[in-house]
């Protein structure tokens, strides 16, 4: 049996427990392939010695450069190392025809040889699909996969390497990363779901990738039966059983294999168990308290938007998912703004949505879910808070070229998106969409436009800050014409595209900020057709001034 894993020094110890569990329950010849970038020679030696010591295993190391994938999005529990499995096809020797990928937070509880040698029915991959609704919607949307796609968890993957070599060009991973790189939510798992779309044979989740968070959700009565049938257990989630604050009861399954390794000699498992118990009490109390108070379990994350560090307390996953590219990963970051999205906020957005989308006027209003209203509420609350910090929210499309940004303002449906897409066609990679719908604009000594996660249905945004050189009021025209405008002439349209607070004082402040734009940015009126010449004219005219 070939087993593929990827880890570096920081995950070496837990990974050994996974390996130990494979060796214990599978008496056949096991060959481990380990992709790494920073294992120490001593660690490699130790791994080799430990596997050889089992009497039926060997290890091969496949090194990748440390800077590989460094640019890609990671989460606290999705490290850079998981991306390494995308290199499997490139790194593994041709002699490997089949291989089983295991995350380093998995435990093999039983013999899996039969599973390993199964008929893959012409598919390139065997994996397990999550049934949790909603969690992967945003990934599928970002990957432009159909909404009914069965998204698989990439913790356990059985690869037919021979078929992959025949059918998958190596380039495919790189291409996907290039296109979707910063839009990935679940890291390389998203990439794999796109690459192997429709090439997957699905295996029983409960048997081959039983996630401990699933165990938490089923009743106590069902748990023993589930565990009895489970062959591969996955300690998914952000807290792991080797950590003191692990609040679940599955630590003993990890301990069973960890105890066999001298690496864990110093760990006092009794003490660890007590700590887990304490953590569990805190966790259950927290849950109970919330239930009693009729409160929801809330989540929070920290983003950096328009130069400010913002903690967002939320309920649904979506607002977190769309904010991926803006996460503040420094743990000690000082929080400038804290916003909390309440049930009332969500209800308010729903009312607003219904009010502004009159069903009598148009028949195909897309139906929105609470998660969508929460996204809108987050935008409103962040805008309200940022107004206090000299930042405006504008309805418009901002594009950056040559370190300068231009903002196109017009009513919805006029053709802002069409126009900035013409810029992208004209200028290629030189042109970067800062935000396709609602950029933040900081008005200070100079005027800076920022990307943000809220960017309209096309999803165009970039986490960047660029000097705003011009604001252009866009209109449809029979021919293309551009002219400079005075601030006062541009004011009415500009003001109606600005997010105005309901708070009188704040509204006044916002209006003052708009007033400060005079003399700091140039104003234009562009009448344009949806033809490439429109972009050329606008780019050249505005670029000359700036």
């Amino acid at each position, binding site marked *: 049996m070939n087993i593929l894993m990827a880890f570096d020094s920081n995950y070496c110890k837990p990974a050994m427990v996974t390996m130990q569990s494979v060796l214990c329950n599978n008496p056949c010849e096991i060959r481990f392939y380990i992709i790494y970038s920073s294992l120490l020679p001593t660690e490699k030696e130790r791994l080799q010695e430990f596997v050889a010591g089992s009497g039926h295993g060997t290890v091969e190391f496949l090194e990748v450069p440390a800077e590989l994938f460094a640019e890609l999005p990671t989460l606290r529990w999705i490290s850079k190392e998981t991306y390494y499995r995308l290199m499997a096809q490139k790194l593994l020797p041709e002699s490997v025809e089949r291989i089983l990928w295991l995350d380093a937070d998995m435990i093999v509880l039983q013999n899996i040889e039969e599973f390993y040698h199964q008929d893959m029915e012409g598919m390139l991959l065997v994996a397990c699909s999550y049934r949790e609704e909603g969690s992967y919607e945003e990934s599928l949307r970002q990957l432009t996969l159909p909404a009914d796609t069965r998204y698989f968890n990439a913790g356990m993957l059985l690869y037919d390497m021979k078929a992959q070599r025949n059918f998958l060009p190596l380039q495919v991973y790189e291409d996907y990363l290039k296109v979707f790189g910063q839009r990935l939510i679940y890291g390389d798992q998203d990439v794999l779901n796109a690459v192997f779309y429709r090439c997957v044979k699905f295996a029983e989740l409960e048997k081959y990738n039983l996630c401990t968070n699933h165990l938490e959700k089923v009743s106590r009565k069902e748990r023993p039966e589930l565990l009895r049938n489970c062959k591969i257990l996955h300690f998914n989630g952000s807290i792991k059983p080797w950590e003191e604050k692990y609040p679940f009861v599955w630590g003993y399954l990890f301990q069973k294999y960890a105890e066999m390794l001298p690496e864990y000699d110093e760990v006092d498992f009794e003490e660890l168990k007590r700590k887990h118990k304490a953590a569990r009490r805190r966790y259950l109390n927290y849950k109970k308290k919330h239930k009693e108070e009729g409160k929801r379990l809330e989540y929070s994350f920290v983003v950096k938007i328009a130069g400010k560090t913002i903690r967002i307390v939320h309920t649904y996953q979506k607002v977190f998912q769309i904010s991926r590219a803006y996460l503040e990963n420094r743990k000690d970051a000082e929080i400038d703004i804290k916003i909390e999205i309440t049930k009332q906020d969500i209800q308010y957005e729903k009312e607003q949505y219904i009010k502004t989308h009159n069903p009598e006027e148009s028949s195909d209003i897309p139906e929105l879910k609470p998660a969508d209203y929460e996204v809108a509420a987050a935008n409103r609350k962040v805008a309200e808070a940022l107004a206090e910090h000299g930042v405006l929210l504008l309805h418009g499309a901002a594009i950056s070229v040559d370190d300068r940004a231009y903002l196109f303002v017009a009513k919805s449906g006029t053709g802002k998106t069409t126009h900035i897409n013409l810029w992208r066609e004209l200028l290629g990679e030189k042109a970067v969409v800062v935000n396709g719908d609602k950029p933040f604009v900081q008005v200070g000594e100079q005027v800076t436009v920022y990307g943000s996660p809220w960017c309209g249905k096309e999803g165009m945004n970039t986490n960047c800050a660029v000097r705003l050189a011009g604001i252009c009021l866009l209109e449809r025209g029979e021919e293309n014409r551009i002219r400079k405008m005075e601030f*006062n002439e541009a004011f009415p349209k500009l003001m*109606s595209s600005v997010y*105005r607070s309901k*708070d*009188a004082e704040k509204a*006044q402040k916002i209006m003052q900020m*708009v*007033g400060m734009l005079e003399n700091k940015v140039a104003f234009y009126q562009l009448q344009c057709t949806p033809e490439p010449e429109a972009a050329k004219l606008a780019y050249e005219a505005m670029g000359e001034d700036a």
Partner: protein
Amino acid sequence: MKIKTGFKLMRVGIQNIVVAVEQRAEEFNGMVRLNESGCFLWEQLEKGAQKTELTEALVAEYGIPAESAAADTDAFLNTLWTNGILVE
């Protein structure tokens, strides 16, 4: 006749706009621009002036004939009525 609560005149540079705030913003999300004499009239309205007083104030402030002051006042009030800014 008076201005409904929640309508505020806001100024920046030479720009003057009337917007709705607080609860009023739920029913009115547009804005009404006023010129200099419009702002003057708004302030009189806020002080409780009625139509004839508004016209008189215009005459006194700008020294214009009563006839054109009355026409200006009518136009001003008309704009506010059509936007639902006034109440009897």
